[in-house]
């Protein structure tokens, strides 16, 4: 039996004024230690849904429960201790005069005593591998470092759920890999990660559950392997499987002993080398 969900989304509708329904009846549960990909085109409702999970938005109809409490009855500061949100562009999030203040801001807001703050700041910076003097001005950091600082400032609040809204935009592959390793470690330590992304190969490599939103509704919510190997389903939302999955599908169709739902390069290499032992 699975434990109680951390977040329950119950038949949520959301209307932006004057009359645009961004969410039209979304229901889902989010549990401890999940790695979820939230996919969909721009305008599909991904960010609107994500903002419901941490109380930045409350439903027009339906309800969202965080730890069993309706988000309408919780302050954003209270929810921030449970659900952290890292924005797409770190420039939109970073505002303080130095690294220390940037991270301490959130901690003070949620009432962490001043004597505890420095330890939590250091811990969070270590977690994201950002080794800079605490008085460094964040605006002089590189883009990759700003991303890590933005994550650290959310992490310091020790939220059980961390939402990352397209964290890899504008990063090169090396930095994307580094960032994903950091995020994956957080998942291994028991956090739930919700990754909003357009990068199918990346989502397929790390996520275990995939949710596709389409026109404000959930098109699918299933294990990642099922979702990423389903060409027809993805096409409904103008998405494509990763290239390596397309290769596995085609090899499988031609009758080779390769499963049709391979998600990573390493998996495919393992499969091919394992054939050496069979034949």
């Amino acid at each position: 039996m699975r434990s109680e969900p951390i977040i329950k989304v119950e038949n949520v509708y959301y209307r932006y004024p004057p009359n645009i329904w961004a969410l039209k009846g979304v229901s889902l549960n989010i549990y401890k230690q999940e790695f979820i990909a939230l996919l969909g085109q721009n305008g599909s409702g991904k960010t609107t849904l994500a903002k419901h999970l941490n109380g930045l938005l409350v439903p027009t109809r339906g309800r969202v429960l965080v730890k069993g409490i309706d988000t309408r009855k919780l302050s954003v500061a209270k929810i921030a201790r449970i659900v952290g949100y890292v924005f797409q562009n770190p420039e939109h999030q970073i505002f303080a005069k130095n690294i220390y203040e940037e991270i301490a801001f959130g901690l003070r807001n949620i009432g962490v005593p001043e004597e505890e703050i420095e330890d939590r700041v250091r811990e969070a910076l270590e977690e994201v591998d950002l080794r800079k003097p605490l008085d460094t001005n964040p605006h002089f950091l590189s883009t990759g470092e700003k991303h890590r600082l933005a994550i650290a400032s959310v992490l310091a609040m020790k939220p059980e759920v961390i939402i990352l809204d397209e964290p890899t935009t504008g990063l090169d592959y090396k930095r994307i890999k580094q960032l994903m390793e950091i995020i994956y470690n957080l998942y291994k330590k028991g956090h739930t990660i919700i990754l909003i992304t357009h990068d199918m190969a990346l989502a397929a490599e790390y996520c275990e559950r995939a949710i596709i939103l389409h026109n404000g509704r959930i098109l699918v919510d299933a294990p990642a392997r099922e979702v990423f190997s389903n060409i027809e389903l993805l096409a409904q939302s103008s998405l494509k499987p990763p290239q390596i999955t397309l290769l596995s599908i085609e090899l499988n169709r031609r009758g080779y002993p390769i499963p049709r739902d391979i998600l990573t390069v390493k998996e495919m290499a393992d499969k091919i080398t394992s054939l050496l032992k069979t034949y």
Partner: protein
Amino acid sequence: MKENYAVVVEDLWFKYVASKDYVLRGVNLKVKPGEFVVIMGPSGCGKSTLAYTLNGIIPHVFKGEFKGKVIVNGLNTLEHTVSELATHVGMVFQNPEAQIVTMTVIEELSFGPENLGLPRDEIERRIREVVKVARLEGKEYRPTVSLSGGEKQALAIASVLALRPSILVLDEVTSMLDPIGTELVSEMVVKLNKEYGLTIIAIDHRVEWAAEYADRIVIMDEGQILGEGKPEEVFSSPDLVRKIGFRAPQVSELAYELIDRGLSVKKIPISLSEAVETYSKLIDMIMKGEWRPLKNEK
């Protein structure tokens, strides 16, 4: 006789006023008219700086120490203004929001030609033409804010095209778009190259796309060009690809991984169709017990 080039960059060094060190360190690049070149490399490798030198933004707007020379369509950028160069080299950037300056599609498209002081009927003719290329027909009077990200970026490209450049420099123009927007803009770029013969110099991280459409891939790191060649040449060199930590197409990465494990992959595939052939044959050989290990197998 000198060969005719769209772009010639000769031993180019550049250092911004605020930067400690040179950002470009002896770059040499020649691009032929009609060529489709994709520049790749990690953040901070100097690729955007190189792009800025191609239409004179460097050194005319962003100042610094500039050594070497850049010639576009025979014009030395040091001797011509940015507005003159803009009719030869169009440049489009990453963020569609940041480069749209007017309220409606038609105003945006007429902005450049009006500034060139072109006659009214010429401006109208050009707008009709670029609206078609950007697939914005029927949306001429729409407010620019109502366009999708992909449409905004198509509009940004179209407004540059209205100046009739023969060279288009694109700095990660799809990196902020969703898959539908990315497709719209990518198709437009390929069409401009294949059908209209524009020279394209695109900075892009999307390897699968570059592998399929580029005539040549240029790899930069630390202000220098580390390697260049046809996509199949570049991606067949795992050492180069790994050295600067960039992502090759997944089907090429599979080949690198298998080679590491001692399997022989003679031709490294870069597209899905090539990969299906290559790996079908490889698996056939394995299943018949005919596979040969590489000499350097550990």
